[in-house]
C-alpha cells in the first residue's frame, strides 16, 4: 500500500480537501431536497387542518401566545363564505414521557372538539403511542366548558391509556392549552 506520508502538510491538505468536497456535496443535496421537504411539512399541516375541522372553503392563520407554556400556538380559522365553521389549533405539551407532543385540535364555533390529530410524539411504542389510535375518540364532541379534561386519577373525566398515565396527562395538557387559547381569541373584547 503506497500511502502518503503522514507529514503535517499532507494531513492538513487531505482533511481540508475531504471536508470541502463533502460539504459541497451535502449542501448541493440540501438545495435539491429543500423544496420537497417543505412541501411534505405543508401537506402534513394541510391534511391535519382538514381532518380536524368541519368542511370549509378557506382558512386564515394566526399566531397566539398561550396563557401557559413558552411557545406560541398557530390558530387556523376555517371559513365558508362569511361564516366561521371552525378553528384548528396547533398545540403542544412538553409533559410527554419522552418530551414534546404536538396535536392539531379542531373546535366548532361553540367550542366543541370536532376532532384531534397527533402531529408529533415520541412516546413509548405500544404504550403511550396508543394516543394516536381510537383512544382519542373520547374527546370528540366534548365541550371543555363542561368536560373536565384531566385523567380520572387526577379527578377528571378522561380515561387514561393503561400503563401510560403520563402520556395521557400530556395529551390533556395540550388539549387544555388549545381550548384556553381558542377561548382567549374568541371573547368579544378581542374581536
Amino acid at each position, binding site marked *: 500500500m*503506497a500511502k502518503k506520508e503522514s507529514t503535517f502538510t499532507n494531513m492538513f491538505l487531505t482533511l481540508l480537501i475531504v471536508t470541502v468536497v*463533502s460539504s459541497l456535496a451535502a449542501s448541493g443535496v440540501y438545495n435539491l431536497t429543500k423544496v420537497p*421537504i417543505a412541501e411534505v411539512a405543508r401537506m402534513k399541516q394541510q391534511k391535519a387542518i382538514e381532518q380536524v375541522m368541519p368542511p370549509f372553503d378557506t382558512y386564515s392563520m394566526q399566531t397566539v401566545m398561550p396563557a401557559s407554556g413558552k411557545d406560541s400556538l398557530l390558530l387556523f380559522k376555517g371559513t365558508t363564505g362569511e361564516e366561521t365553521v371552525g378553528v384548528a389549533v396547533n398545540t403542544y405539551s412538553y409533559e410527554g414521557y419522552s418530551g414534546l407532543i404536538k396535536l392539531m385540535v379542531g373546535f366548532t364555533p361553540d367550542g366543541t372538539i370536532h376532532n384531534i390529530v397527533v402531529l408529533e410524539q415520541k412516546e*413509548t*411504542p405500544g404504550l403511550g403511542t396508543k394516543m394516536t389510535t381510537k383512544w382519542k375518540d373520547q374527546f370528540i364532541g366534548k365541550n371543555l366548558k363542561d368536560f373536565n379534561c384531566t385523567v380520572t386519577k387526577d379527578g377528571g373525566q378522561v380515561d387514561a391509556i393503561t400503563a401510560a398515565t403520563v402520556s395521557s396527562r400530556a395529551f390533556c395538557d395540550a388539549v387544555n392549552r388549545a381550548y384556553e387559547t381558542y377561548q382567549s381569541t374568541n371573547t368579544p373584547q378581542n374581536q
Partner: protein
Amino acid sequence: MNQWQNFSKGFFKENAVFVMLLGMCPTLAITNSAINGLGMGLATTFVLVMSNLSISLIKDLIPAKVRIPTFIVVIASFVTVVDLVMAGYAPALHEQLGIFIPLIVVNCVVLGRAEAFASKNTVVSSIIDGAGMGLGFAMALTLLGAVRELLGNLSLFGFKFIEADGILVFILAPGAFIALGFMIALVNRITKKV
C-alpha cells in the same frame, strides 16, 4: 476469495448482526416492525456501498494518521444525503426511523468495512463487499423486525392478522434483546457451531 464469496459472506459467514454483533444500537432500537428494519437496512446499505466506493478510490491519497477522521467525514456526508432524501421523498419512514438515520454515521459496520476492507482492496471488491455486508445487515434487521412485529403486534409489514394486542414486551427494548438472543442461537445451531 472470489467475488461471489466476497458478496455472500455478509449474509451468513460474517453477518454483521448475527455473527459479528456489530451495529447493535440501530439493530435493537428500530426493529420494532419489519418495515422499519428493511428501511434502516437499505439506508445503511446505500451508505456502506457509497463509502466503500469512495474510500477505496482515495485510499492511496490519505495519510495513515488521519484516515479515521477522513472516513468519518466521507461516511457522514453520505448519511446526510440519505437523511435529506428520505425526509423529502419518504416522510413516513423518515418519521419512524427518526434519530437513527443520522446515527448511521457511528454504526461500527460502516466504519469497520471502511477500515478493514475498503482501505486495503480494489474499488470493485469494495463495492461488492459493501453491498453484501449492507444487504446482510438489512436481511438481519428485517427478520428481527418481522419476528418482533409478529409477536408484539400480531402483524407483518403493517398488515394486521388478528385484531388483538400481542405480547407487548417484544415491541419494547427488552423484547429486542430476547428476540435477537434466540435468533443468534438459531443461527449458531444452523451453522453447527453449537
